[in-house]
């Protein structure tokens, strides 16, 4: 049941991408790959799974028990999927079939992959789901009626159903808040006792919770590996040290706002939500110039709604929002998924030039701003999809800073970035807060991040 990766390299038309990676994992000894986006951790998993994109080829050895995977013909490798190797996809609530109830999705695997009779499949699925704490009520719901954590457990049950003993988990905590993340870590750890679990993540807390072996990847190489506690507590490689230090709980504390700063946005007695479900009510919030106010809470608690109400993008159900007298374009927003906030077919130069033209900003002001945000001018001729998420988020910051904003609503602006990049973007944002007296409303599901950067912290909960 063990997985042994020896001297694995992946090469494409432009040369090698993964350079001689050697790792191993076994039941009870899970393996966690951490590293930034583009470090090659997903390619290692794709090489194990046999799903490398066309044009890329793997060399070296990947052994699953006695089977040498890399030399198997593609059809034979596909035959292993589900039966011996299973993939837990990113954001599993998106990969479950939205038109099918949770239980039948697991039954289907038993029926189609293991050829079990319908009644036996139903019993098997019920047993698997019950073992993960999902009772009859949960399994008769549709995926969109399940919480992120429950959907994840349904997906885990589906990966177990056909008997796979190697589980590849791709960014399993993406999009989950803290409570769900801990729950997932427990589930994966329990699974790791019986199966070989290979997890890809940039979540240090998850890597720590899973234990086993941690391998840190940078630019296609494993720069450090060893027992999780050892690697994460006493990192030897400079990159690992940066990665560990990037955890918000280790950041220096926030500066308080300068005394007497003007309030840029305030909400009084705010309530939002629909008739049946009030997200929050009678909420008072003030954001002053030069401070960061954080709003956190579990998914679906109305964090983004609150920010949108303060920006005037939506009308609150009750209460009033007062914004300081200024042009509406001085109230801006940063988005969770940077590529979704740019026109995908226009280069960044075009995007900035359009903006400069619209607001009569001379191009001469743009260059120093880009330099301040450590953005190379060479990136200007790329499309938004052709640069990293961290770079694009900094472009988004540059874009809003051109308009000299008073208030910025940062909606989970760093939650899709790896820890090092998150720290980089947050530091630049904090510098702007002090330098320009920008007022920021930071919405995040990470309490540690909220505590690290905000002078005030509003916690929203889901009301019953």
């Amino acid at each position, binding site marked *: 049941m063990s997985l042994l990766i020896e001297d694995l390299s992946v090469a*494409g038309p432009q040369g090698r991408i993964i350079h001689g990676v050697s790792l191993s994992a076994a039941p009870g000894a899970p393996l966690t790959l951490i590293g930034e986006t*583009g470090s090659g951790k997903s390619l290692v998993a794709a090489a194990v799974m046999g799903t490398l994109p066309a*044009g890329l080829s793997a060399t070296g050895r990947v052994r699953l028990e006695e089977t040498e995977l890399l030399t198997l013909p593609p059809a034979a490798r596909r035959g292993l999927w589900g039966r011996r190797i299973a993939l837990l996809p990113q954001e599993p609530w998106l990969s479950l079939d939205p038109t099918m109830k949770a239980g039948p999705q697991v039954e289907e695997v038993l029926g189609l992959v293991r050829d079990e009779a319908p009644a036996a499949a139903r019993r098997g699925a019920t047993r698997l789901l019950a073992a993960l704490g999902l009772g009859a009520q949960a399994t008769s719901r549709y995926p969109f009626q399940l919480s992120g954590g429950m959907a994840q457990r349904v997906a885990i049950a589906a990966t177990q159903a056909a008997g796979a003993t190697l589980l590849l988990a791709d960014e399993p905590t993406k999009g989950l808040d803290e409570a769900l993340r801990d729950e997932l870590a427990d589930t994966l750890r329990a699974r790791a006792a019986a199966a070989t679990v290979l997890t890809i993540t940039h979540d240090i807390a998850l890597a720590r919770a899973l234990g086993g072996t941690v391998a840190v990847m940078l630019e296609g190489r494993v720069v450090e590996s060893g027992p999780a506690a050892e690697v994460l507590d006493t990192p030897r490689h400079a990159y690992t040290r940066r990665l560990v230090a990037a955890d918000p709980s280790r950041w220096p504390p926030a500066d308080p706002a300068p005394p007497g700063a003007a309030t840029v946005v305030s909400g009084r007695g705010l309530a939002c939500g629909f008739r049946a479900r009030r997200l929050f009510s009678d909420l008072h919030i003030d954001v002053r110039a030069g401070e960061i106010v954080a709003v956190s809470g579990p998914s679906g608690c109305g964090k983004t709604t609150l920010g949108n109400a303060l920006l005037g993008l939506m009308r609150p159900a009750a209460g009033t929002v007062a914004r300081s007298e200024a042009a*509406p374009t001085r109230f801006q927003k940063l988005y969770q998924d940077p590529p979704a906030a740019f*026109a995908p077919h226009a280069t960044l130069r075009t995007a900035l030039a359009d903006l400069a033209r619209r607001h009569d900003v001379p191009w001469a002001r743009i260059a120093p701003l880009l330099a301040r945000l450590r953005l190379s001018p060479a990136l200007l001729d790329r499309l938004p999809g052709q640069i990293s998420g961290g770079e694009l988020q900094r472009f988004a910051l540059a874009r809003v800073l051109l308009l000299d904003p008073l208030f910025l609503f940062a909606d989970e602006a760093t939650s899709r970035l790896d820890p090092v990049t998150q720290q980089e973007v947050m530091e630049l944002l904090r510098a702007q807060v002090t330098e320009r007296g920008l007022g920021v409303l930071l919405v995040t599901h990470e309490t540690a991040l909220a505590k690290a950067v905000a002078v005030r912290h509003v916690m929203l909960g889901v009301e019953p």
Partner: protein
Amino acid sequence: MSDMVLDAASAMPRARRAVSTRIAGAAILLALVAFAAFGPLLAIDPARQDLRNMLAPMGGEYLLGTDHLGRSILARLAHAARLSLGFATLALLAAAIPGTLLGVIAAWSGGWIDRALSILADMILALPGLLLVLVLAAFAPGDIRVLFMGVSVALWVEFFRVARASAAGVLASPEVEAARLLGFGPAHIVRRHVAPRIVPVLATLAAFGVGGAVVTISTLSFIHVGVRPPTPEWGNMIVELLPYFEEAPAHALAPAGCIFLLLIALNLLAGQDPR
């Protein structure tokens, strides 16, 4: 960075195949357009009857033979190509431009404007397109302007529906919200955000639409409410030559082959979306 490399690498073979089918489609279409543009200049009068040479075989004095009245099939095909392609292109533009504009307006404004336009579109959609053209054509049989109107009225709904649905998705996206917050107006949002998304879809629809319009006008000729003889049109050429199918089967197949080639070309051109 490496993500980009991967995307490019995995997309390449498919994109290349798509490009080669597009080139094939474009080549056939270009040949047909050239035939329509220059054929009538070179060939002889399509109305001249050579009554001693009725149903002349292909490859003789007349390259594609003559019809039952001794008229050159090649010349008639060329003139018909001009009519069919020109008519279809104009009818398509007359449908696509207002259809797309109304679709974007409906998606943008929402509310009662959207509802009113959607209901109108649904009403037209409820009638089969051909039936609609048929009803209009019955008022003034053979009048090309009425045919044109009928085809456009039936076709615009598709463009409206597709433009509205695609534009609505884009308009609700974070990128448009960001653009609005940054102070951009409707013209910029349509040009930078909406148009790049809907134009490829609409181009595909347009290619199929041209094919549909050509088939519609030929079908109408075939059932004697379309273009009237002696004006050559692919559909009415089939009608005219069909009774002589036993003696000269290839003759009736020539106009059918033209329609077939045009549809193949448009499908090759539109069917393979490289994305």
